[in-house]
């Protein structure tokens, strides 16, 4: 009868890899969104100043 190998560490490694990479990507989306929002506000103010 074959013995089931102990591979729990690899399983944990796999799930940790997924959540770390996915979280980093989602964080990058949020950071980029916030930076663009800030740029948008600044540029809109500059444009208003140019018009007035």
């Amino acid at each position, binding site marked *: 009868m*074959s013995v*089931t190998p102990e*591979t729990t560490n690899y399983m944990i490694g*796999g799930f940790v890899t997924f959540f770390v*990479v*996915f979280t980093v990507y989602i964080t990058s*989306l949020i950071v*980029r969104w916030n930076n663009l929002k800030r740029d*948008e506000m600044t540029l809109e103010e500059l*444009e208003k100043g140019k018009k007035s």
Partner: protein
Amino acid sequence: MNKKPKILLFLDIFSLVLLAGATYLSLNYAPMEVTMGNVQKVFYFHVANAWVGMLGFIAAGVAGIAYLRTGNSKWDIVEVAAVEISLVFFLIAIMLGSIWARPAWNTWWTWEPRLTTAAITEMIYLAYFMLRNGIEDPNRRARFSAVYTLVGSVSVPITFMAIRLFRTIHPVVIGSESAQAQGGFNMSPDMKVAFFFALFAFTILFIDVFWNRIRLGILQNKVEELKLKVME
């Protein structure tokens, strides 16, 4: 830019709940596979990530066709979003496959047909961003990118079919099992529940991230236009 639509907010939460559910089913509900042990549970996320990765590459090809037909820049935004997200999901699929391969094949990596074609696909789409960064004119950039994604999308069916067309050690879990496969297994009904739930959860997650990334692209375009206006 308008506030986040309520349906997207709902989708954000729903996809996170589904992801939690997929994690629970993979770790707790699906039984341990006897020949590989717990590492087999990585398979549910590995396949789901590869699925949405390929889905996005195909979506990018479709957006490329739409851009070439209409010349509408919104399709360029959709295309970039699809490629970027798919690169991330497909990279995760490759990494998870490698982690699974270590105990199953006794190596992190081997140049067999599926792994090779998957690595080539990932590199093709990495090069997509290098191509975009090398072209200044937005219309030219969008046109070249559209053609590139169209040609690049050919790599997706090749990667998918690689384990069915060539002699390979990569298991074919759905469909006929290849004789050379190492680490193949038959899914029990409980495993199938975890597997198909993960596929569903990742499809919804993909749609959610895709939508959010498209909104980011629209905002990016708006900021670029504002910059040009201010500089005039």
